[in-house]
């Protein structure tokens, strides 16, 4: 598994990891780039207390693999350029944390068998944040976010969708909760909102408010899990 390290976790390109750094998931990088809003992320990055960090797996998902597919290669090229320019640092994690996350997340809910909810990609991100004492994740993917913020709501959702009763393995539930305690998730929508607060859309002149709202819709249509009512709310804040 690329990106894993059995030794002490450490930053790849940027050396020591700063405490307010953000671990980025490929879902956010893809939706921002596909919406033409990588510039918004770069603007926020310049004003961050910490750094933007990615795991080797995220590089594979958002750069290396899509680079081989003509349909997605332009987005991948833009991200590669940002990576090469030092906008992202590479973060590592330990096998132990990675395995514990996978084990807890995939055994906390069960029916006749455990509900296998998350995969390596999501576990990698969480492990990277935990091992490096980081608290913020940039992630548009909904399920992992719900597992961290409101696991019982996710359980209810699964029960409604599959029309089955789901049991909770309290030990695994407690372990996952303990491991992810203090983690906060932001989405590409919040990155666009931060960029707006820092004048990113001023270049559109009189259309700046419309540009901001349109940008929020663009990232929604490119996969950011945000509701239409939330977009309205964000534009009013």
């Amino acid at each position, binding site marked *: 598994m690329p990106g894993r390290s059995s030794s002490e976790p450490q930053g790849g390109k940027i050396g020591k990891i700063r405490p307010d750094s953000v671990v980025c998931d490929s879902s956010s990088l893809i*939706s921002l780039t596909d919406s033409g809003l990588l510039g918004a992320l770069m603007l926020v990055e310049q004003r961050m207390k910490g750094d933007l960090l990615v795991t080797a797996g995220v590089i594979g998902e958002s750069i290396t693999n899509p680079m081989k597919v003509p349909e997605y290669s332009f987005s991948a090229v833009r991200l590669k350029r940002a990576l090469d320019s030092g906008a992202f640092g590479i973060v590592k994690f330990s096998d132990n944390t990675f395995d514990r996350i996978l084990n807890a997340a995939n055994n906390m809910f069960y029916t006749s*068998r455990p509900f296998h909810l998350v995969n390596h990609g999501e576990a990698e991100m969480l492990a990277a944040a935990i091992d490096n004492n980081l608290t*913020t994740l940039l992630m548009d993917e909904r399920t992992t976010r719900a597992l961290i*913020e409101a696991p019982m709501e996710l359980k209810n959702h699964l029960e409604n*969708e599959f029309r089955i009763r789901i049991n909770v393995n309290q030990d695994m539930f407690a372990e996952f909760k303990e491991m992810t305690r203090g983690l*906060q998730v932001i989405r590409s929508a919040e990155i666009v909102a*931060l960029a707006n607060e820092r004048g990113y859309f001023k270049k559109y002149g009189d259309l700046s408010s419309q540009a901001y709202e349109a940008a929020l819709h663009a990232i929604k249509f*490119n*996969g950011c899990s945000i509701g239409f*009512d939330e977009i309205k709310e964000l534009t009013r804040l």
Partner: protein
Amino acid sequence: MAPTPQPASAKSAFPPIFECLDRLKKGFDKRDAHELREVMSHCAGKLITEEQHAYFLMALIAYILSKITQKPRYKDPKVFKNIEISLGNALVHAKLNNTSALNQSLDVLLASITELEKVDRRFVTNVVEKGRTKIAALLYAQGISLNRAMTLTGARKQEVLSYTGHTMMADRFGRTLSALERLKNARKIVK
């Protein structure tokens, strides 16, 4: 209305996988695209609860057949007859609960259906890829993580994100934090 309890005798003697495939075959025999889409959703759900690859193959085949039955350019009686025969063969394996033979026969069927589109290719993304995306999006909407859905279906992340972005999935799930709260968290990362 409360569901009526089924008498013990009404329970099928056949494996559940057989019942899904039987429903798929009957749907195709009737050229019922709507029923085939229902079979796709049912098999996708079973894929999560039962974790058997055959359910994915059946979901994908059901999706493709629902498309094929709707498009006149695919309507070749000889091809349709071959699909019916292949589904019949797969049913025999399903009835015996022979998973490896079933998977193999479904793989062969899938490959032969995929060939259909090569004859008259009109889009860059073929119907098989669309099916993978559709099933992955369905699983993701049901509560499985994006990466897990991709692993089970072989779909591409970009496609699934774009597809789900155009659905009401995010609106239907509800919120776990208010917009203001999340923005406040985001503000902490900047100077």
